[in-house]
Structures are given as C-alpha cells and as structure tokens.
C-alpha cells in the first residue's frame, strides 16, 4: 500500500468511526433529542368509566337521580364545595350513617390548583379495553380486537425505544388480570414489541393470597456460585435450540434488572407481612390497594413512567351508591399517591408530572337497575360516555389553569401519549412515528 492509499483509507476509517452512531443498550441509535420537563411521569388511568356529571361537573345527585343536591366528592383533585346533604360516599366511621363520613382531604392544595385541568376532553372509545388502548397507544385502531395485544406501539415502547429507558424504569401496575389488562404492556407492532415493553405486576394477584401461596417461597440462589452456572447452562441449551425456536417474548430486563425485580418481590412479601406497604388511609377496594403497591414500586425503582390502572367505579353498571363511594376513594387514592411521591420519595419529589384521565365516561341516561338507595345505575355506550377530563400537575405544567368547558371541548384522550412524550423528551419521535390519532397533539400545545 502506498502512502497516498494509506492516508485515504485511514481517513475513510476515521470518518466512519465518527459517523457510525453509538448504539444504546435499548437498540436506539441516538440519544433523545427533546428536553425533558421532568424525570418522572405517573399516569393514572382513572378509573373505570367516570361520568362528567358526578366528577368534574360536581353535580353529585343533581344530574343523575333527580335530587337537587350537588357538590364535589373529589376534593383532592378538584376545587369546589362538598355536598351538604345525602352524604353516602364516605366511610361508616363516626356518625353511624352508612357512608356518612367523608374521607378527609389529603392534599392541602388540589391538583387543579397545583396544575392544569382540561375540563371537557373527548374519549375515543366508550368501552374499557378500547379506552385503555387509546390512553396507552394514543390512537384508536378500528381493527383492535378484545383479548388482543395493542396493534400500535404503546407509550412504554415509545419511551424505551426512542428514549432509551431501561425496562426496570417503565412500569404498568394493573389492578387485576381481567379484561385483557396484562396484554397492554406492549404492542404487537413489528417495529416495537416486547423488547420495548413495560414491566407489569397485578399486585392483587402477585402479592395477594395466590402470590403468597405460589411465588413467595422462592429459593434464593447465590448470584455467583449458583445463578451464574445456571444461566451458563441455560444459555448453552438455548444456543443449541436457537435454530429451531426462541424463548417467549422478552421484555429485555437485563440479568441485573431481573435480580432487582426478584429482590423487590421478596421485599414486598416481607413488607406485606409486616403491614408496611404504603396504602392510602382507606383501603376498602382494589383501587386503593393498587395505589399502595404502585407507591411501593415507585419507592423501589423510581421509574421514569409508572402507569396505574383503577377501575372500581365500574360497579356503576348496577350500583350507583357504590360508584359514588368508589369515585370518592379513587380521588383519595390519587391524593395519597401524589402526597406519597412528594413526601416519601425524594428522588421523585418535585421532578414528577402526574396525569390522570378516565378511559371513558358513562351514559347520560340511566339503566333500569336500582341500588339500595333506589338510585339508578349507569352504563357506558352513548355520546356522554365519550366525555371525560384530564388533570395534570408537576414541573412545567401551568398552575391553577382550567381549559375548556361543556360547551367548548378541548383535547382528546389520545393527547396523553404525546404529552408524556414531551415531558420525557421524545415527543418528536412519537409524533414522527405516524401511529397517533391524526388530531392528537401534546396537551402543552393546547395550552
């Protein structure tokens, strides 16, 4: 090789070394280009079909049962006076009346005061699975079936693929395993999928009676002396089988992350036994329990995103009184969640944005079922079921701001995905991927 050729080749090699991008562990080529507004997002899928009338419109029994008693039963989230009569949504403690004692407010300032409320948002599905898919995919795919993984990428996959977040920083906390909930932690999309999925627990099972019986007695193997050779053998066996088939869908947790999750599970079984899980004060339903375990997950992992699902209000199909109680408790649980982050998790306090939206609303007109108070129940299938709200609070979110009203709807539930993308620095990548509902934009762009 002559000198000229050597210099030319060396130049090409050098240029190549600079040009070839550094490939992040997540598989993405470049670091996220967007600026993060906060380090963490807590996204509450609130809470199983919520009527605007009893939630943000604060009409209590006035717009459902024909009684002139209005008032706010969600006073951790919204500003407004509580009902003065016919109090049934509280606890049985105190005055002896069934549900007659409202749960004390947790937050000194409501989320409405601390942040921004979109008062009239359009949900793009009147059903639970469709609504949840919409909240997580940012789109409403007409071919999306029940009991089917999301067709388009979820917010988890966007964050992991484009933001480079490791699996253990992306969590979905489900309040059960019914209604296809465990399907929602990643999509079937060929460009995304399980390797960018979220870790998922349904704590009522994992850390409930079943989990205690079948999972809590796991043998603890020594990481070097036992686990290392075990994994070496597994990898050898997998290598032999590699040409035939592969393992099940992997979330891409590294071995260290898996050890960390197993340690978390052991710790949680111990803490359940010691009554040390940070549950809300009132834990009468599965939503409250789920929020407690979500707090535990955040305390341990400090995730970039924690999605928490609530659904107890769906008892409204047959029990309006129970619905009011569940709504009041869901508000209590969200208040507890926000308070816990700000006071008990220093790494997340002041660096977390909370977003809460129902996946769908409920009907304008009742069904024929009456509850113990002779109050009618409500399903979710009409236009009123597509009316919901979105609340957000935290760094970068304007405070004490209210946008839209009954006559002037602003925003869609699918907006939440690019909004989270903006908070965590991958909005452009999400918008550019081309899978969002066409009209969706970040809620910050609607302010």
């Amino acid at each position, binding site marked *: 090789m002559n000198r000229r050729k050597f210099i030319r080749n060396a130049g090409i090699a050098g240029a190549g070394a600079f040009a070839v991008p550094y490939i992040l562990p997540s598989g993405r080529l470049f670091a996220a280009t967007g600026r993060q507004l906060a380090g963490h997002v807590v996204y509450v899928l609130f809470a199983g079909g919520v009527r605007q009338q009893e939630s943000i419109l604060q009409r209590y029994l006035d717009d459902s049962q024909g009684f002139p008693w209005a008032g706010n039963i969600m006073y951790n989230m919204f500003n407004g006076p509580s009902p003065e009569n016919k109090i049934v949504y509280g606890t049985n403690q105190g005055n002896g009346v069934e549900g007659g004692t409202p749960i004390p407010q947790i937050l000194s300032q409501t989320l409405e005061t601390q942040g921004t409320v979109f008062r009239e948002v359009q949900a793009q599905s009147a059903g639970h699975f469709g609504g949840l898919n919409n909240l997580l995919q940012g789109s409403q795919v007409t071919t999306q079936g029940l009991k089917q993984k999301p067709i388009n990428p979820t917010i988890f996959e966007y964050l992991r693929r484009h933001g480079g977040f490791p699996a253990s920083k992306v969590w979905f906390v489900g309040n059960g395993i019914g209604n296809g909930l465990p399907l929602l932690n990643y999509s079937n999309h060929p460009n995304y999928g399980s390797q960018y999925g979220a870790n998922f*627990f*349904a704590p009522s099972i994992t850390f409930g009676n079943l989990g205690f019986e079948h999972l809590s007695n796991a043998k603890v193997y020594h990481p070097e002396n036992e686990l290392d050779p075990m994994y070496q053998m597994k990898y050898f066996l997998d290598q032999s089988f590699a040409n035939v088939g592969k393992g099940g869908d992997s979330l891409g947790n590294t071995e260290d992350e898996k050890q960390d*999750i197993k340690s978390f599970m052991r710790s949680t079984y111990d803490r359940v036994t010691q009554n040390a899980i940070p549950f809300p004060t009132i834990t009468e339903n599965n939503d409250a329990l789920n929020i407690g375990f979500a707090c535990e997950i955040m305390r341990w992992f400090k995730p970039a995103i924690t999605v928490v699902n609530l659904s107890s209000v769906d008892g409204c199909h047959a029990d309006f009184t129970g619905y009011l109680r569940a709504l009041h408790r869901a508000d209590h649980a969200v208040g507890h969640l926000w308070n816990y982050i700000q006071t008990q998790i220093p790494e997340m306090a002041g660096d977390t944005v909370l977003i809460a939206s129902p996946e769908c609303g409920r009907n304008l007109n009742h069904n024929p079922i009456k509850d113990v108070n002779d109050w009618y129940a409500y399903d979710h299938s009409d236009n009123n079921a597509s009316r919901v709200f979105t609340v957000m609070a935290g760094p970068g979110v304007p405070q004490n701001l209210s946008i839209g009203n009954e006559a002037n709807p602003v925003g869609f539930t699918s907006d939440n995905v690019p909004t989270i993308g903006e908070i965590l620095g991958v909005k452009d990548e999400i918008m550019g991927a081309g899978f969002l509902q066409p009209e969706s934009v970040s809620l910050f762009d609607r302010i």
Partner: protein
Amino acid sequence: MKNKIIAFFLGLLILSFAACKKDVAQDQYEVNPVKLYPSIGAKNKNKTQEQYVSILYTNLFQRALSGNQLVEIIDCLESIGDKELGREVLISNFMNDPQVVLPSDSVMRANPDVFTEQTYERFFVRKPSEAEKTWFRNFIEANPQLSAEMIYFAFALSNEYLYY
C-alpha cells in the same frame, strides 16, 4: 370310598365357588409410552402456559398437578409482565418445596453421561447429541459446586422446554 365321596363334594364346592366368582374386568390406567423426538428440530409447537406448568410440575414432583392449583399458578404467571422472570420465580418456589424429587448429586457425579442423558429425556424428551453430552460432562467436572438441582433449574428455564 367315603373319603372319595367327601373329596368329590369338596372339589365340587371349590369349583362352585370358582364358578360364582364374578369376572370383573379391571380398568387399568397406565401411562402411554412416550416416543423420544428423533431430533431437536422435530419440536415446532409452543407449549401453552398450562402445558408448561403442568409438565414442569410433573417433571419435578413425579405426580400430577391438581386443576385448582394449575389455575392459580397460571393466574400468578399472568400477573407478572416478564414471563421468563415469572417462570424463574415459579421454578425457584418449586425447588424450595421439600416434596420435589431430585436425583442426588453423588448419582450425578458418579456417571455424568447417564445423568445428562436421563435429564435430556426427562425435560426435552430426546437424547442429547454427543456434543451436548460432552459439554455437560465437562461442565459438571469443571464445577464442583454444581448440583443436580441447578441443572434441573437450567433445563426448566430453557427455551427448548417451552416447545414440544
């Protein structure tokens, strides 16, 4: 003569009992012999979670898992997003059960080739290739702390065990 008559009637009596014995066909339930896969490539179907759990339980405990327990365990696995991690936790729980049936380490070390062959047959329903046998022989001999339990764990967690 009298003795002959007594013997005749005694014989008749015995025969009559024999004749009265009801001939009941006994239903016998046995395990069908399982043919070994001719090669690793013959496996092309994924086990369902139910199949995986019940086969794993049978392999480790040498008895069948009850229907109720199967449903409960499947629910537990459903409640964990990382399925491989879920399986690992489940296997670790099984290994902590005093009723798990494992060969002793001394049996394993006495004849690693036979142990490897039996383990492949138990978990993978096929014979190991010579290369696989050699690898495990070397691995067992090179790792004095290795136990039969650890090898069973690796097989139960392997990708091939997810197929049939």
